[in-house]
């Protein structure tokens, strides 16, 4: 099956591709080495409309299509996984508003995100509730027209730099996951603390924050959907964002493969290019095949998200599972093709291998994807 991308989507992709080549790729090694958030890349993306991709035009954006988001993430991730999260998390943190917000909320909250004036983040995980998200303990108590939030969130990508943070909290602790509600926090009105940033194996330039709420006030007008609808919103959002992680994994694998393929053609041993050896050729063939299979699954899932297809949950989980497992294997093999050079930081593939691992873990570990897939098969 071939995917019909619109001319507009292809134009957006080509613009991103060019920007990534010129501005992002040359920064990638330094971003990893210094483990610093690339504010310059965020501003570049804002100026060029890339942060507006997750939003339809009526909310100040340029697309709103999952296919376009995935194309963008894939292109950026080919050069720099950290930078690809700037778009991916903008989408993740905005989906709750787009999926569950009222017209008023969308009109009010989306334009500053679409213009890139603010970045978004999504705060679901806690220390005691990772895969078991329903066990979250952050509390939201209503007092008149506002809620007061208390609690701690863990592993929140961009939690420290976001201007808009979607938080899932218990409004009725006795009601289990049916007591969870979703809130949009705007930093200027509802400031939260980010006391700790993590040092990580990969995506080192992307700040992963612990977030602390101490009596943080949120207007009731910023609650998304009804009280108790939060868990459903959280899952609906993850269904829609997972193809994006698949696209990130795909981009990382493609970036590593492009480098390893060129290296294999140029590196000479035994008087010939190593690409002329069948052992290397078979690796290259397997890698290319796995990338192609992943690309099809990722864009098929994105197409289903755009079509609001009834089986989007299952296919989105499959795309995330398959593409991220593929990326881990492919990047490990690309390091292998470069041999000793693959293992040192003067070459980009070891970074790509380190970056790949998190795609198997975040936005639902791959074990959770299997649970989701099995559940939809057995339902």
């Amino acid at each position, binding site marked *: 099956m071939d995917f019909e991308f619109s001319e507009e989507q292809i134009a957006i992709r080509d613009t991103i591709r060019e920007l990534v080549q010129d501005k992002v790729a040359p920064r990638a090694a330094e971003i990893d080495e210094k483990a610093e958030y690339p504010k310059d890349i965020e501003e570049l993306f804002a100026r060029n409309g890339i942060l507006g991709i997750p939003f339809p035009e009526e909310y100040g954006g340029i697309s709103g299509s999952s296919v376009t988001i995935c194309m963008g993430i894939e292109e950026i991730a080919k050069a720099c996984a950290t930078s690809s999260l700037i778009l991916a998390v903008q989408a993740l943190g905005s989906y709750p508003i787009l999926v569950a917000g009222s017209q008023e909320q969308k009109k009010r909250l989306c334009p500053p995100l679409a213009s890139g004036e603010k970045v978004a983040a999504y705060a679901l*995980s806690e220390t005691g509730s*990772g*895969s078991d998200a329903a066990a979250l303990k952050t509390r939201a108590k209503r007092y008149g027209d506002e809620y007061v939030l208390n609690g701690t969130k863990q*592993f929140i990508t961009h939690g420290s730099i976001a201007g808009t943070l979607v938080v899932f909290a218990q409004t009725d602790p006795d009601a289990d996951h049916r007591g969870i509600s979703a809130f949009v926090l705007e930093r200027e009105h509802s400031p939260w603390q980010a006391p700790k940033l*993590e*040092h*990580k*194996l*990969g995506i080192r330039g992307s700040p992963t924050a612990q977030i602390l709420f101490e009596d943080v006030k949120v207007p009731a007008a910023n609650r998304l959907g009804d009280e108790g609808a939060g868990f459903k919103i959280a899952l609906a959002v993850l269904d829609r964002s997972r193809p994006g992680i698949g696209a990130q994994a795909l981009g990382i694998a493609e970036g590593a493969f492009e480098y390893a393929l060129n290296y294999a053609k140029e590196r*000479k*041993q*035994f*008087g010939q290019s*190593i690409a002329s*050896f069948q*052992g*290397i050729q078979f690796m290259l063939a397997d890698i290319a095949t796995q990338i192609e299979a992943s690309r099809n699954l990722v864009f098929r899932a994105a197409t289903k998200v755009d079509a609001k297809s009834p089986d989007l949950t299952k296919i989105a989980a499959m795309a995330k599972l398959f593409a991220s497992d593929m990326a*881990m294997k492919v990047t*490990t093999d690309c*390091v*292998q093709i470069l*041999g*000793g050079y*693959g*293992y*040192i*930081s*003067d070459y980009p593939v*070891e970074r790509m*291998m*380190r970056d790949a*691992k*998190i795609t*198997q*873990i*975040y936005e639902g*570990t*791959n*074990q959770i994807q*299997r*649970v989701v897939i099995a559940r939809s098969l057995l339902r």
Partner: protein
Amino acid sequence: MAPHHEAFRASVRELAQSVVEPLAADVDQSHRFPDEAIAAAAAAGLMGVLIPRDYGGAGLDALAFTLCIEELAQACASTSVIVDVHTSVGSEPILLFGDEEQKRKWLPLLASGQLLGAFALTEPAAGSDAASLKASAHRVGGDYVLNGTKVFITNIGRAGLYIVFARTVPDERAAGISAFIVPADSTGLRVGQVFKKMGLNGSPTGELVLEDVKVPAANRLAAEGQGFTVAMRALDSGRIGISGQALGIAQAAVDQARSALADRPRQQGDDFALADMATRVESARLLAYRAAWLCSAGKPFTGPASMAKLHCTDTAMDVALNALQLAGEEGTLVGSPFERHVRDAKALQIYEGTNQVQRYVIARDLLKSR
């Protein structure tokens, strides 16, 4: 396994867990040489496991060596590779190919850990194709004059001597290569770039630059033209050591995954993953011990050593990745052993012959014996 092997393993484990393991996270994060660990290993006689007692070593066999490296790697992969390279490819060429005078002069220093050994074969353009190396050694009177650049040298800057492979005859591939014992303080020998790597951060890796380095002819190992044979034989047993290293990393990952799982509700998916990991490590271990036993028994072991290296290192990579998967996001944080094992394990599929070279060796071994 014989009781003396069990006892030896237990003694190394005691040292590894009490002295080496507590340093591992810091050694990795600070990119520092584990001086205390190496000093402790030397004091316990672990720098001379394979060297006969007559030359100041412990006089143990290849299996004991494998166990030693396995136990050290379970605690700290950086420490294990330093000891492994020193003991096998950094010392064994002298033990196996040196004349009596060379053995008397160098082995006691290596066995005590007074000198750290290193092995300088690879060059920028001669990796898997080692026989194409270009470093030269010209005979001038009673000396050889060495020139060239070696790359990816483990123990760079820390070694007291390097076993250097250089060409005494140009353009004859393997047949033109000779081996030399080159003291680190030789004039003209210097350390080039030291690499920043994905893992094994406590073990320095870098370039060795030789500019008109004068080495006495008495430091040539074996006859002129025998260098490639020396290198290949050293790598055969070196690969058993790397297998032990892989087993140590893999076993640590399994044990830590088991602990992580003990803290959460049992799930069949986790149970099956853990079972697969443990089974693979156990099968890899048998392959490594068999290669070590064949080596000790004086039987042909080239193919079995390559099989052990291939299977053990692939197992270590997979097991490290799967253990990190079971640990989840927590495991990706710097300071967690899970992410360190992943970064450390990858090197093993590459050094002392990439796993592509191992497959080549195995296939050649299979096809020539028919």
